[in-house]
């Protein structure tokens, strides 16, 4: 499956990935409107930063995903064909077991009425996840395992 690979050496810490991720998963999908009116947005990709080191991480869509194992409601599942791990908002009960076991720390709590976990869905309806598409320095690359180092 195609996954997002992180090129730590090129992350410039601009956080545009976080911004576009929030817009993509907002109600309005319009950047200015979303930021001015939807105050409960949580990015599913996170830039971690110390000094000049930084990188953006989002769900790695692990082969044996611990979050899927830990999910008590069947909300978290790995698509057998695409390999994408997604959380079904309808099923999620907000028990946070997934947060407890994710070694990457990339699952978050969605702010809002219903308690649900929020995680990267690889922007299934896009050709390319928006974080990858909008990274100005190609520090995030969508690629098959074998081509991850080519560019």
């Amino acid at each position, binding site marked *: 499956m195609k996954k997002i690979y992180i090129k730590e050496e090129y992350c410039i810490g601009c956080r*545009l990935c976080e911004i576009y991720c929030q817009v993509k998963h907002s109600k309005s999908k319009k950047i*200015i409107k979303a930021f001015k009116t939807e105050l409960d947005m949580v990015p599913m990709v996170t830039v971690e930063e110390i000094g*000049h080191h930084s990188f953006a991480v989002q769900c790695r869509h692990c082969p044996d995903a611990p979050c899927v194992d830990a999910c008590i409601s069947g909300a978290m599942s790995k698509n057998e064909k695409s390999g994408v791990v997604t959380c079904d908002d309808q099923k999620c009960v907000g028990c946070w077991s997934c947060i407890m076991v994710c070694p990457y720390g990339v699952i978050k709590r969605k702010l809002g009425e219903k308690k649900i976990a929020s995680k990267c869905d690889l922007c299934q309806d896009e050709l390319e996840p928006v974080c990858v598409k909008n990274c100005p*320095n190609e520090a995030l690359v969508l690629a098959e395992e074998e081509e991850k180092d080519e560019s």
Partner: protein
Amino acid sequence: MALKPRQTDFEVVRDQDKCISCQVCLRQCSNDVHEYDSDQDIIYSDNSQCVGCHRCESLCPTGAMKIKQSESEFRQNFNWSPAHIKNIYKQADSGGVLLTGMGADRPYPIYWDHILFNAAQVTNPSIDPLREPMEIKTFIGNKSDVVGVDIDQGETFNMKLKQDISPQLVLSTPILFSAMSFGSISFNACASLARAARQFGTFYNTGEGGMHKDLEIYASNTIVQVASGRFGVDIDYLKRAAAIEIKIGQGAKPGIGGHLPAEKVTEEVSNARMIPQGTDAISPAPHHDIYSIEDLMQLIYALKEATDYQKPVGVKVSAVHNVAPIASGIVRAGADFVTIDGLRGGTGAAPQAIRDNIGIPIELALASVDTRLREEGIRHKASVIAAGSIRSSADIVKAIALGADAVYIGSAALLALGCNLCQKCYTGKCNWGIATQDPYLTKRLNPNIGTRRLENLLRGWSLEIKEMLGGAGINAIESLRGNREHLRGIGIGEKELAVLGIKHAGEAW
């Protein structure tokens, strides 16, 4: 603190209706222009710190920002321009030499914009480069006085050259990347240049920065410089290179040396330059062993000797008043190529007074050098590479018609990498990751992207060159070189036309 007159050059215009306070601008500015106020959820900008690099504007996801030339104006005065006034303020403040970066920006005539190229009509057919062969391959080096062939009259009909040919650089297009040292530009910028040169079949130039270990793999596409500081020069450096260039002068700062301040001499820079870390890297104004053409000849032959006469050795000079006889001397001293760097050539750091007032434009220098070498019958003994603000494929075509074999591009290459010509290279705070060694900034230039963009530029320009050649009915760049009949001047005087060796527009053959 004494009051200082205002010196704001730019104004950050922020459309608050569009600004989402995402702070991308703030994170990208190395000049601390922007500041986020969390109480008000607003970003404020300090115009006085803005250098006009447009990094924030380029990355703003909502298009909320515009960087404008400061609207605050001095009383109009044709003598005392704002630039003069502000410079005086700055110097009254600092008491120092005003530094700047990139090439001269004064409004001297730009002759490229006063030269028009020709096209074929009726009496000779134009050529479609997409359908017919078109050769822009270029050879840099000394060409033999005569060429003879031995033909084996037997069945195979083999031909063999009678003479040994001097070493040549083979370029897939008449464009090279000019000398920009590691130190003045970042490793990622150097890597982009090196990789693009390799992939496109041309060359980049180390400048006086030495060769970074990780770029040794690109040595066969590298021209190495031997400059007055001799930084990074040892036998391996010379032997690895594809060609050697002795740097006498640079268009942006003829007659003066260079100074890389100690704080920029990082571990990596010190390794490449072979000097102690954290010491000033001073390139003397002259080479202390060159006071005459004869001395230069000694160095040329020392380098040829050291490299077994296997690679071209050239000399780079700035375009000064006497450039034609100097070039003649250089060719006679045995150089395989002469690089002429014009007035508008760029730099990582130069005193503004020098950058903007010393030297002559490349167009005039190139024409006079080519003319002189022809008159002396030695034009074929060396290639001529023109440098100093080549801005487009048209500039290249005109340069070649004026007599150049190829051109070096520096500023244009940096522009392709993202440069906005803010001219603050000397501060080391380049927001585009080009002219800096700050690890926070250098990673902003991803060499994968850099390489791709440089290659794109070379490809685009090469296609345009072919189109222009075809239009003029020429199918090989060789046939254009020095072919000044294809050029006409426009809006310039007799004297300039004479120096350029071209007719005025409207004059037929």
